């Protein structure tokens, strides 16, 4: 696609200003990886507008925030070297095309590959669908969903998610054409969960899965109400 410098500048300005939709933001972020002109235009707008951050009054973080960050750093330090260790069991895990299709590609794939290889003790069953659930902001992977049959899925933690004491994680799914997400139950951080899907239509490619933060008994409305902690889409495994 050919875009004029003016279009690029307008798009970059609205991206930095924050007025683009989720879809438009994703497109810009994908283009930024490959489009040096757009990168320059965005950088210029970041520079022009940066001083406006002074309009937001500073607010001291709670005392435990640094501790949380440090625990995440430690977890990263442990998982990254593991990911670069040679894989011993060649299987569909090694198929590049599969990982290429997953959200947050690089880091997510490396970390998930590393963690799953480490925790794997028995041969994997024939898997039909795979979902990597990543944190929406950082794209850091937190959970993997394996569906060895279209009627049942397994939610596997890659670490222990941080959940405030007065909150719970609730698991949801939504396929193309559904009116609203459907609850698959509450999830305990760090624990596997097996979910029969007998009340639902079979899994479909691109089906959305997410974990949101809800009240301890689950969402009072039967629909997600809290912030998304992890999100991902089903990828068919050949």
């Amino acid at each position, binding site marked *: 696609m050919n875009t004029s410098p003016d279009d690029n500048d307008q798009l970059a300005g609205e991206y930095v200003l*924050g007025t683009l939709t989720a879809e438009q933001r994703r497109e810009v972020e994908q283009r930024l990886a490959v489009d040096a002109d757009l990168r320059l235009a965005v950088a210029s707008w970041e520079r*022009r507008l940066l001083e406006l951050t002074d309009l937001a009054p500073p607010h001291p*973080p709670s005392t435990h925030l640094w501790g949380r960050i440090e625990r995440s750093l430690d977890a990263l330090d442990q998982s990254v070297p593991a990911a670069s260790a040679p894989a011993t069991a060649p299987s569909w895990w090694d198929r590049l095309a599969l990982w290429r299709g997953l959200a947050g590609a690089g880091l997510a794939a490396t970390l998930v590959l590393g963690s799953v290889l480490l925790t794997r003790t028995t041969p994997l069953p024939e898997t039909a669908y795979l979902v990597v659930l990543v944190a929406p902001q950082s794209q850091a992977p937190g959970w993997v969903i394996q569906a060895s049959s279209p009627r049942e899925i397994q939610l596997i933690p890659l670490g222990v998610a941080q959940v405030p004491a007065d909150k719970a994680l609730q698991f949801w799914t*939504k396929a193309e054409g559904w009116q609203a997400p459907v609850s698959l139950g509450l999830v305990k951080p760090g624990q596997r969960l097996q979910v029969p899907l007998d009340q639902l239509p079979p899994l479909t490619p691109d089906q959305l899965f997410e974990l949101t933060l809800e009240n301890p008994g689950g969402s009072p409305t039967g629909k997600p109400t809290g912030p998304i902690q992890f999100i991902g889409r089903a990828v068919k495994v050949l």
Partner: protein
Amino acid sequence: MPEPGFDYEACLTACAQGDHQALRDLYTQESARLLGVARRIAGDNALAEDIVHDAFIRIWTKAASFDPALGTARGWIFSVTRHLALNFMRNSARLVSISQDHEVASSGFDLHGHSGRIYDCLEQLPPARRDCLLHAYVDGYSHGQIAEKLGTPLGTVKAWIKRSLAALRECMG
């Protein structure tokens, strides 16, 4: 306001080499300001802390990709944080309805006492158009939210923002 004498770029270089203390130094230096930025966009303190957590992890994992030719190191960590916050707000609007009433209310914007080219250029815009830009940048409001907040038709808001950006660009170079 950047702290004189604090070497942001050296911190990023050290982060890229795996030095936790360098990230800690950046945190000590800027976490309150970054949290301030995230709170205005997220409208919620707990969510803003999640965003700052993710921002520091991203700063850590992406430090090696920081390009000093494109901007300052301090600007980069603010951009990382703002875009995480904006992405979160835009993405979650798809599935989860976010409570309209922000816990961290947007007040009017007092530009007095702020100096810098951007403030001089903003002063030259009609107040309503200036507010569009500030609600977008500082509060993370979408076109629709700005229209609602200002009681102005959506199409007008979009056109104002487009023209105001062009005017800013002209004024700032």
